[in-house]
């Protein structure tokens, strides 16, 4: 049992480590490819060679990021087969389809249009080159779409039917995968890549200004990066609002954890700043916060777009209480879910025995009982409702880090763009401003990663919402093997990250000693 807990914990850590490292590379590819495509479009429209030089400089940084990051996501798929074999089999029919499409699509789009983008200068027509650059950017986003559709399905499993003979959830409606959860998640994640890349471009451009190098190139880059980043951030806020509504509808426990909310109310306030009380449990009377500053009715507006709406807390959800349009609704309590989950599991066990004995009547009876209780299948693994609560403090703080940094970056973009057009001397002369812009780059990465921590830690303990908790999804393997591969990945990824940062710094430093605008563009 202890080894099982250790395997679960190490496998979780390993998956988190891999996903976090992978997400260091992905958003920059998603956003910088768009920024480069816009720069090249301006070049084609103006025929100004300075825009060509600008495009080529940022395209090189895109190439570095792409080369280092490519295939880091494949490790997640390795982990599915080894560490999460029960999960892999249980959802393989659904989860496999989007991942396969992503793999094929990414390979063909990147191998063709990416090659033309990187190798095709002076070999294909300027228009075809621009088309290739745009298709590379669009291809990266389409690749992300399939991954995010798969991830969304885990958070909101729809469009499938469980087949107890195959022990698989079998897809019966492909288009159901494109749920509101998936659409919001796709746009939120991809547009966050734009926001991140805008800050990256501004930060690097400010390094040029800090070194008093390539002033016009830097200001030109800041304007393009700034507009695309600002557009990405504003749309990200819009889709974030959509995500909050979807989370309230499909994963109310995650929303309650994000807020550290235990007892909900109508016109529920939103905690803008606070400290979680570590002694608070769902069934005691401790105050959930040691300290809090709240925005009245804020959570009701965020969650249900209605300032007087009821938002349930953790204890309400466990007790099966919600209020819709002023009427108290009794949803299924967690005690009842656990009971029905056990009935479903018992029916599945009986189905297996009947199948082996060839008892057709008994398989039908077991299948009927299973189908009636399947929606709570995963709850049968819990001994108490407390096991179904995500880590509240980590979810709560990560959400605030994301929102606060996101708000800072809105101000950052507005100020930088204003200065770039109205007072460029501030950007070119004020060292402190340049330093703030450079420090903002790692802060943006923290903001982006915090968003994923909210999404993934907030949905714990589920790998597939309501159906399969992490403890059941795991393979029967020794914890020592997961520990070894954990450290192997930690080393491999750290080396890759150091290589990326090192090569980028070397390239940028080299560029600060040259005149980018007057470089040969042959």
């Amino acid at each position, binding site marked *: 049992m202890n080894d099982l807990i250790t395997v679960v914990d190490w496998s979780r850590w390993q998956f988190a480590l891999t996903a976090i490292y992978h997400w260091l590379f992905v958003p920059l590819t998603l956003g910088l490819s768009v920024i480069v495509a816009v720069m090249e479009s301006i070049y084609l429209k103006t025929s100004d060679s300075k825009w060509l030089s600008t495009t080529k400089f940022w395209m090189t940084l895109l190439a570095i990021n792409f080369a280092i990051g490519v*295939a880091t996501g494949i490790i997640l798929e*390795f982990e599915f087969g080894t560490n999460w074999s029960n999960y892999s089999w249980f959802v393989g029919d659904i989860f496999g389809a989007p991942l396969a499409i992503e793999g094929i699509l990414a390979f063909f789009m990147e191998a063709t249009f990416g090659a033309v983008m990187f190798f095709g200068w002076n070999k294909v027509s300027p228009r075809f080159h621009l088309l290739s650059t745009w298709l590379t950017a669009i291809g990266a986003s389409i690749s992300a779409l399939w991954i995010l559709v798969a991830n969304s399905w885990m958070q909101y499993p729809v469009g499938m039917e469980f087949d107890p003979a195959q022990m698989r959830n079998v897809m019966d409606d492909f288009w159901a995968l494109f749920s509101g959860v998936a659409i919001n998640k796709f746009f939120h994640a991809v547009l966050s890549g734009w926001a991140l890349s805008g800050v990256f471009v501004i930060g690097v451009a400010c390094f040029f200004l800090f070194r008093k190098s390539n002033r016009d190139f830097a200001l030109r880059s800041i304007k393009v990066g700034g507009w695309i980043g600002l557009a990405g951030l504003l749309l990200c806020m819009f889709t974030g609002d959509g995500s909050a509504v979807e989370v309230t509808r499909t994963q109310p426990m995650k929303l309650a954890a994000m807020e550290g909310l235990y007892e909900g109310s109508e016109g529920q306030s939103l905690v803008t700043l606070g400290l979680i009380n570590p002694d608070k449990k769902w069934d005691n009377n401790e105050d959930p916060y040691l300290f809090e500053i709240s925005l009245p009715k804020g959570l009701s507006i965020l969650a249900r777009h209605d300032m007087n709406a009821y938002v349930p807390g953790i204890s309400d959800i466990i007790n099966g209480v919600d209020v819709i349009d002023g009427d108290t609704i009794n949803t299924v309590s967690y005690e009842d879910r656990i009971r029905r989950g056990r009935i479903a599991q018992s029916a599945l066990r009986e189905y297996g025995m009947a199948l082996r004995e060839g008892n057709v009547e008994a398989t039908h009876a077991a299948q009927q009982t299973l189908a009636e209780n399947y929606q709570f299948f995963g709850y049968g693994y819990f001994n108490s409702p407390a096991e179904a609560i995500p880590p509240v403090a980590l979810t709560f703080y990560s959400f605030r880090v994301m929102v606060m940094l996101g708000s800072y970056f809105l101000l950052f973009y507005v100020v930088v763009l204003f200065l770039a057009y109205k007072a460029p001397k501030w950007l070119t002369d004020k060292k402190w401003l340049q330093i703030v812009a450079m420090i903002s780059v790692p802060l943006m990465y923290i903001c982006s990663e915090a968003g994923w921590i909210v999404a993934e830690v907030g949905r714990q303990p589920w790998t597939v919402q309501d159906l399969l908790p992490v403890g059941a999804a795991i393979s029967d393997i020794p914890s020592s093997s997961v520990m070894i591969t954990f450290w192997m990945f930690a080393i491999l990824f750290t080396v890759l990250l150091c290589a990326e940062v090192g090569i980028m710094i070397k390239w940028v430093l080299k560029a600060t000693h040259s005149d980018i605008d007057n470089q040969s563009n042959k």
Partner: protein
Amino acid sequence: MSIKNILIFYRDGFRQMTIGRTLWAIILIKLFLLFFVLKLFFFPNLLEKNFDTDEDRAEAVRTNLTMP
């Protein structure tokens, strides 16, 4: 564009790279580590490896998921 032209396009592209050579070296080493070391020796697909048929794999998962 014939296949020969496409191959020449890729060949010339690789030849003209400067920083790209380092990047390709990193990509190839990384892919080797991922597919020929990690995947082969550390990340077997357990159900594929331990069971011969899909029925056996389904039975194993059923047992795992319904152990009281």
